[in-house]
């Protein structure tokens, strides 16, 4: 027995004994297809545990090699190669990028696995793909990279995008579980994307059930970089660029607005000189933002230890004025090996300050910008605060000056985050390893907003005659303790067994406090003033315990079986239902190993796999099962605040987990030595016991207003396909990777008739609905049918209600769906589905000598969008706001061939209807980049790498959507912060 030397390379674990023989020494260099040397590449003699790793320069030396030996060269993210040694003593090896490469090592829950033996549904994204985009948050970089993963970005700097794996499986949070180096965290915003080595997206039960009660939304497993073998290597990179947003809604200018205003008998009572202004409010809120990023990292490794240090500074200005994000991040990862005992740690610290979009009256800046009348100037030095806004009447008083909303307050959101882990491993005996790990996710945030007194107009329509200051702080800490035993053994050369027993305990704590107050006397003090003081605080805690047993078995990597069972308990549930059991099992059959295809078949890999299991979801609030009292119902008694307390309602002691049963069937194909690869997946998930916040009867008057119960069921199913192709011809190498995924859901059981969500502005009801037989959060409303052009057309619809007088010619005509001769809420139907039919991504990359180029396209197809901006633009509020130029074509008794309703029409014009639903499908050129690597010879050894590149993001978007940006969460456009186009230039240097 030779002791395992490089225990972390999982491929070793399925090898059996080695046979040694003294023959010759082979050395060589390993490079990637861009010519860059690769450190840390594993070189093994096939069928043995004998091997080595490349050093920092990509060099390796291997003694005692026989000519008949076959060397297996593996590296994460690259296609493995096998080379018969023969007469060679010096090898130059080029590893190709793997497209879901079959021999890659895949990070899985609590370990690693060879892609060969994977029976679940896992997509991987590597460091290169993540670093390609100038993102502040690694989740943003995952968009379009993995089939079945949907990412919806928000243009606001520093914001976290919405991430979904395989669509929606619950009415609650569908956010996946994020695990960084074994530490369960809330999202990936706390780490620098540049520190990420590899991301695994776990999608089916056999991979996610290992996380038991928290795995049902899928898992994003992140591994951060570690030191590579060899002498120290210093990398420095910088990029800088500009971000802009150029789309605009077509709104009326002053001349057009005044024409429109007079047509509706609105005559702003303003001095004539004011009408010489022509403010483009959209131009006033958008700007070109600069982004810059500096990164430095140092990596070093010896036989017994590795170190990796990094630091990054990022500063991004938003494309909306006075928004931005700034972050300093640091990382130190290291590992040490003292023979039987190994230990290591990861630690990152990030300090950030983000300044997001401010809202005025709960409306977005874009809403204010398109509704603000163009004759008002942005600034007026005569007004307190220096801004100009509308007056009481005539100018439309709830369109506030968006520039004042965004730039008058002084605000910030500062955050300190620490994520780290410490682990130790001990080899108890051959194949048996004990591991213990403690992980920490800590944050401390502080936000404050100071608004000096202001008055946008002498009418004081938008005014604050005091300075207000509000501030809050939040603190959170999650601790994860994990102990495990892992046993790996090969019996009789072909029976490969791996067994894992694991226990885990987590404790999450959070607390916060905040306050606000006014100062009536001065604007000078950014402190809590003496009046209207209000304070609050709260804290919560969640504890969880879990036990996991897992067995992986394969026979000669031909027949693969794995099974796991996890028992989990959570403090979020009452003692009646505190424990849950989450089993899974999977089978794989590597058909290509059977010899069916013959030695010279072009099919080098064909694997059929299937998995089934049950995972859970406990993502509801804390303490939901216990009855509580609630306070704060103050009422003035005499001259004092009378404290008020009541019973809160909403408790349910029988709450338990949501359970999602997942079936996955997959097929992997590799042709021509994996030059062409394909993976196909089909999944069908059934969610049961979904936590539905059943609205309590409105008339029960419960303060909670709802009670959480395990009621709902959903079926979600879909397919995914990943196709990869790579080729090399001389100095030219290229690859193409395409992924596509779909996910459909149908609500089977809901417990209530419907759950309306996503409120329309101005109290016009809810836009989306959940109901049995339909997809979650579909659009629900009336079906419009043009405009009533004359009274006869009105009378023809309201046959059962001829006395109605409110709907008049010029109002929107809706279809009388139920045919009762009246138009009311009973005529609402399912209008459209905001979930895409499918999402896709296409990545093309090529290298020629020292040039590299890549092109990355993402898109969604078959998605519908509810554009509330269109409602405002087309005079939906029925008030004298600015709007689209189509308002000039509004219905009047003299204009009866229009599609634009009469101004200020009947209430029913404000109904939720298909009038504002648009096709939101889009294809976006997410990234295009071109780079040049200066040959290292040029620097005579001072630099080992010098690459310059230019790239552009979101340069082209092909869509029929008339709004600013079709990329929307839940398909409703309230005037969302759009994503910028950006142009970047960068340099990467290594020495």
């Amino acid at each position: 027995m030779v002791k395992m030397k490089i225990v972390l390379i999982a491929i070793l674990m399925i090898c059996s004994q080695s046979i040694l023989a003294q023959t010759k020494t082979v050395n060589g260099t390993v490079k990637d297809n861009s010519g860059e040397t690769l450190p840390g590449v594993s070189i093994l003699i096939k069928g043995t545990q004998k091997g080595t790793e490349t050093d920092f320069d990509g060099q390796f030396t291997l003694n005692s090699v026989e000519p008949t030996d076959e060397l297996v060269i593996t590296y994460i993210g690259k296609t493995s190669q096998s080379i018969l040694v023969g007469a060679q003593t010096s090898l130059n090896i080029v590893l190709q990028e793997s497209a879901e490469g079959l021999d890659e090592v895949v990070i899985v829950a609590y370990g690693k696995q060879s892609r060969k033996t994977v029976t679940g549904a896992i997509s991987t994204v590597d460091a290169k793909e993540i670093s390609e985009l100038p993102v502040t948050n690694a989740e943003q970089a995952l968009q379009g990279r993995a089939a079945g993963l949907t990412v919806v970005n928000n243009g606001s700097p520093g914001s976290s995008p919405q991430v979904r794996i395989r669509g929606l499986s619950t009415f609650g949070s569908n956010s996946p579980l994020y695990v960084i180096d074994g530490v369960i965290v809330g999202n990936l915003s706390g780490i620098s994307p540049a520190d990420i080595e590899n991301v695994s997206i776990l999608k089916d039960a056999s991979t996610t059930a290992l996380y038991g009660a928290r795995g049902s939304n899928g898992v994003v497993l992140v591994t951060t970089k570690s030191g590579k073998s060899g002498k120290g290597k210093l990398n420095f990179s910088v990029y800088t660029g500009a971000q802009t947003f150029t789309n605009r809604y077509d709104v009326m200018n002053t001349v057009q607005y005044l024409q429109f205003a007079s047509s509706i008998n609105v005559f702003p009572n303003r001095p004539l000189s004011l009408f010489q202004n022509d403010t483009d409010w959209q131009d006033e809120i958008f700007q070109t933002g600069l982004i810059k990023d500096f990164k430095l990292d140092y990596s070093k490794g010896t036989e017994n230890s590795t170190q990796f240090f990094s630091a990054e500074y990022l500063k991004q200005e938003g494309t909306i004025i006075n928004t931005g994000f700034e972050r300093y991040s640091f990382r130190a990862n290291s590992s040490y090996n003292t023979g039987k005992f190994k230990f290591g740690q990861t630690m990152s610290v990030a300090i950030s300050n983000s300044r997001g979009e401010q809202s005025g009256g709960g409306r977005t800046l874009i809403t204010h910008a398109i509704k603000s009348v163009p004759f008002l100037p942005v600034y007026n030095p005569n007004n307190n605060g220096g801004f100009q806004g509308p007056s009481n009447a005539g100018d439309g008083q709830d369109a506030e000056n968006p520039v004042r909303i965004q730039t008058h307050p002084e605000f910030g959101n500062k955050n300190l985050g620490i994520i780290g882990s410490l682990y130790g491993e001990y080899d108890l005996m051959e194949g048996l390893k004990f591991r213990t790990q403690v992980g920490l996710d800590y944050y401390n945030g502080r936000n404050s907003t100071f608004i000096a007194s202001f008055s946008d107009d002498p009418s004081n329509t938008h005014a604050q005659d005091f300075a207000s200051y509000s501030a809050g702080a939040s603190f959170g800490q999650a601790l994860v303790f994990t102990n495990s035993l892992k046993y790996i053994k090969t019996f009789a050369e072909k029976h490969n067994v791996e067994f894992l027993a694991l226990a885990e305990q987590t404790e999450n704590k959070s607390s916060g406090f905040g306050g606000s107050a006014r100062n009536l006397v001065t604007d000078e003090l950014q402190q809590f003033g003496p009046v209207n003081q209000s304070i609050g605080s709260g804290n919560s805690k969640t504890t969880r315990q879990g036990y996991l047993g897992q067995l992986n078995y394969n026979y000669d990597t031909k027949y693969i079986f794995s099974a796991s069972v996890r028992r989990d308990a959570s403090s979020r549930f009452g003692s009646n239902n505190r424990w849950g059991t989450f089993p899974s099992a999977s089978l794989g059959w590597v058909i290509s190993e059977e010899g069916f295809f013959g030695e010279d078949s072009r099919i080098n890999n064909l694997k059929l796999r299937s998995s089934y299991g049950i995972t859970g979801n406990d993502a509801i609030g804390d303490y939901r099962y216990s009855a509580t009292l609630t306070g704060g119902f103050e009422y003035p008694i005499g001259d004092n605040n009378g404290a008020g307390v009541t019973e809160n309602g909403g408790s349910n002691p029988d709450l338990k987990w949501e359970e999602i049963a997942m079936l996955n069937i997959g097929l992997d194909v590799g042709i021509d030595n994996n030059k062409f690869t394909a993976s196909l997946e089909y999944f069908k998930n059934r969610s049961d016991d979904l936590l539905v916040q059943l609205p309590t009867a409105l008339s029960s008057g419960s303060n909670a207003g709802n009670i959480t119960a395990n009621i709902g069921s959903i079926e979600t199913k879909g397919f995914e396909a990943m196709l990869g192709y790579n080729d090399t011809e001389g100095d030219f190498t290229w690859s193409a990777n395409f992924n596509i995924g779909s996910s459909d859901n149908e609500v089977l059981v809901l417990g209530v008739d419907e759950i309306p969500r996503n409120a329309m502005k101005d109290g016009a009801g809810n836009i989306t609905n959940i109901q049995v037989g339909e997809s979650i959060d579909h659009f629900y409303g009336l079906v419009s049918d043009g405009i009533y052009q004359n009274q006869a057309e009105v009378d023809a619809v309201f046959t059962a209600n001829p006395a109605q007088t409110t709907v008049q010619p010029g109002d929107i005509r809706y279809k009388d769906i139920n045919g009762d001769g009246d138009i009311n809420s009973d005529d609402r139907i399912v209008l459209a589905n905001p979930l895409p039919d499918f999402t896709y991504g296409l990545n093309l990359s090529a290298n020629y000598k020292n040039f590299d180029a890549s092109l990355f396209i993402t898109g969604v197809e078959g998605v519908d969008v509810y554009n509330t901006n269109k409602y405002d633009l087309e005079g939906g509020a029925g008030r004298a706001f600015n709007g689209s130029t189509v308002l000039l074509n509004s219905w009047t008794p003299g204009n009866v061939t229009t599609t634009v309703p009469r101004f200020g029409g009947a209430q029913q014009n404000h109904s939720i209807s298909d009038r504002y639903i648009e096709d939101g499908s889009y294809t976006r050129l997410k990234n295009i980049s071109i780079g040049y690597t200066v040959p290292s010879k040029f620097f005579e050894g001072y630099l080992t790498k010098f690459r310059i590149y230019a790239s552009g993001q979101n340069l082209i978007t092909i869509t029929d959507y008339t709004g600013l940006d079709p990329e929307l969460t839940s398909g409703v456009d309230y005037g969302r912060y759009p994503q910028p186009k950006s142009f970047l230039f960068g340099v990467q240097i290594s020495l």
Partner: protein
Amino acid sequence: MKKYKIIFLLLTGVFAINSCNENDLELTDPNQITPETYFANEAQVQAAVNAAYANLQTVGLYGRLIWYMFDNMSQENEDNPQMEPDKRTFKEFTFNSTNGEIRDFWDTCFRGINKANFVIGSAAIIDAIPENELSSTNRQKFYGEARFLRAQYYFMLVNRFGNVPLHNGDFSQPEGKPISPKADVINLIIEDLEFASANLLSKGVEDQGRATKGAAQALLGKVLLYENRHAEALISFNKMSGYDLEVDFYDNFKEETEHGIESVWEVQYDLTLGTGNKWGGAVVGSGQNHATFRGQDYGNLNWFNCYPSDDLFDSYEAGDNRVNGTMYFVGDTYNNGNNTMEAANFVAESDEKPRAWKKYQNYYKQTDEVQESGINAKVIRYADVLLMMAECANEVTSQSVAVGLINRVRERAGFGPNSLPTTLSKAQVFEAVVQERKVELAGEQVRFDDLIRWGRAATFLAGTGYQDGIHRLWPIPDQEISSNPNVTSADQNPGY
């Protein structure tokens, strides 16, 4: 063997570290008080009673929406173009069962009822509090306040919805209750108010803001009047003592003169106690929301969403000084006499309006409503009581007694002590009550209910969109039907 012992120890260790304490999973909410330990002393009972008042303050009721809804339906308001469409539905009677304001009204009333029932339904625990912690007088007073408030909320509900779910002592029941006949609800309201009349403290003894004996007697009289039980109503009204009319009509609508001699039952607002949560939800009633928006919404120097209608203005007789306590006109002074209303102050979207609301505006002392008013809402004042008494007396006592009561109200309006002759017929007295209530109580959310109970809505509201078979009641909100398995579309009020 030693090796295996170590492995065994470690194996047990793997699990022992974690499983040591199942109690770690038993957590209680550190942010909340638990019901088991509550109701141990007077302050705790009082706080539970206070909470039941808080819903009166909400935006769904006197904080904002009730003004619009009732003044628009009664056509006392003329709307300016900037009035939001959802508010205008009440002017035009185009609301339906999805209407958010109606849902808020329903919701906040039932939340108030639930909070009252938390006190009433916890009687077994409250009764067990020892006398040295809670005197029996105060215990009964607290029950009286809770039952008064329950009656107030239910009275608002039955007037607008007719039959409604009835909760008597149960609280936070998630499954909801079926619709009960209006008569059953009225019976509970009357029982509650009889209890409250007997157990509440008198005005002057009780803290300002709490329900008093007089308030309970007045509300009981009002409920009985609405039921056409005139004799019983009159008995209840006649029990009231210590009330009279203010000398100056306008003192009823100013902040400094709240809780005056005429005040019977007010909803409290007090800016000095905090207004930070004034927009914080239309129905919840938590936080510092001690401000009402009426001044900002109605005021011609602010949003000016509406003004007193021509019909209302035309109803004032010449020489009625109440018109100047109710409305502003060009040339009126404001801001303690420092400013004068100019024509430009009456312009709404370029159109000059003839008048603006003055009742409940803060302009008498300031130039701007600053989006919050601390003026209490007078739910019942003694002039209203006198006119209700006149209505009852006309039915069961005599026309001359009724005329005397009306003349008390008219005298303050500047008409001399005997402006109406005692020789009026019963029908003429009734007409006088109708007229007097319209001008005395304009913009005080009584006229629409008056029109309905007098059967005059169809005539008076003709041409507005009002249909008598439908709009005398509001629709039960869709959300009630979807959230309450015991209420179905079949329970919906006619025409919705």
